[in-house]
């Protein structure tokens, strides 16, 4: 096996470059090295000016999302040997403004996320002395998959709807809304409804399904969105048929 592999890295220096230019680096091809290790090698030994985000190096923090050979990947969980003999093309995540090199600006997501109130909403907060809000393993099972999201933005990067309609709330934000809608302790489904049911919410999604295909945590945002479409549609019909009763029931039975 070759001892080195070529990384073709997109470089974008604001104020200097008008668009990214590719730069090649030779890095050691080691069995346990991820793309991120290769980039760290470049930064430490070859070119200290290369910028990229990372933190945990173990697929938990969601910082190191990049486009590797055209596919959105966590660079810490994508191994050099899987791309041998190379070269490996490393670019910033698509669909986001590039700040520098491999660093993208995710402010848009950070603005959208709180709109879906991704926290447990209670109509009346019980005092701490009354103890925890209990939950059975079955109730946990209802939403656990959606709680695995690490906000790595790979789903937004893979979503053509988001690239064509930047107002789209997006896969992760909707999956996180469902994470709380389906939580037995939560009573906020009604408050999330207007945002989720808006044209920029679930209805913008055309079910391409690539968000789920690239998700490194098996969240299935596409599934979450389609399930909410079904919920929203069912509720609208119920409200049309029996306006008073359904509105009251909605706050309890969304999912």
């Amino acid at each position, binding site marked *: 096996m070759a001892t080195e592999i070529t990384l073709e890295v997109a470089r974008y220096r604001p104020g200097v470059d008008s668009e990214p230019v590719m730069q090649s680096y030779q890095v050691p091809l080691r069995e346990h090295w991820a793309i991120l290790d290769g980039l760290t090698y470049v930064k430490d030994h070859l070119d200290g000016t290369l910028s990229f985000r990372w933190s945990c190096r173990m697929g938990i923090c969601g910082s190191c999302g990049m486009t590797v050979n055209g596919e959105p990947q966590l660079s810490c969980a994508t191994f050099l040997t899987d791309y041998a003999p190379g070269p490996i093309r490393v670019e910033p995540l698509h669909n986001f403004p590039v700040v520098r090199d491999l660093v993208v600006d995710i402010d848009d997501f950070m603005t959208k996320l709180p709109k879906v109130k991704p926290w447990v909403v209670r109509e009346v907060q019980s005092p701490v002395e009354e103890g925890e809000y209990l939950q059975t393993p079955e109730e946990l099972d209802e939403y656990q998959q959606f709680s695995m999201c690490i906000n790595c933005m790979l789903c937004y990067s893979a979503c053509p709807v988001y*690239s*064509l309609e930047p107002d789209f709330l997006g896969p992760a934000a909707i999956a996180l809304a469902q994470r709380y809608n389906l939580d037995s302790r939560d009573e906020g489904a009604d408050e999330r409804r207007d945002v989720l049911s808006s044209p920029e919410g679930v209805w913008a999604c055309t079910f*391409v399904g690539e968000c789920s295909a690239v998700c490194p945590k098996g969240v299935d945002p596409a599934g979450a969105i*389609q*399930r909410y479409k079904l919920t929203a549609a069912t509720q609208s019909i119920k409200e049309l048929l029996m306006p008073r009763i359904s509105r009251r029931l909605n706050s309890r039975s969304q999912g």
Partner: protein
Amino acid sequence: MSVYQRPVHLLWWLERRAYVLFVLRELSSVFVAWFVVFLLLLVNAVSDGTASYQRFLDWSGQWWVVAINVVAMLFVLLHVVTWFGLAPRAMAIKVRGRRVPAQQIVAAHYLAWLVLSAAVAWLVLR
């Protein structure tokens, strides 16, 4: 801060296989609509009497109408297969506290398709 925004290419949907399949699936709705129009024309011809029905049959027997219908059928099949495949993702059905497996939901869709097709065939051919 000057940032770089990657432009959206007109042929963005050729970038990934899944995008191509998605665009074809979206396009298939045009052919679904065509079949609805074709069916309405048929019903209209039948209601206008034997001569009109015969004219419709002659028209639909022409090579180009047959060609359109063959292509339309392929697209409608793509539409059905891809949508049935996606159905379990939207439907989280529970029976006696247990989540119904995805394959069973897909199977139920195909079964319903078969039953409906058989019912229509019986209605038309009896």
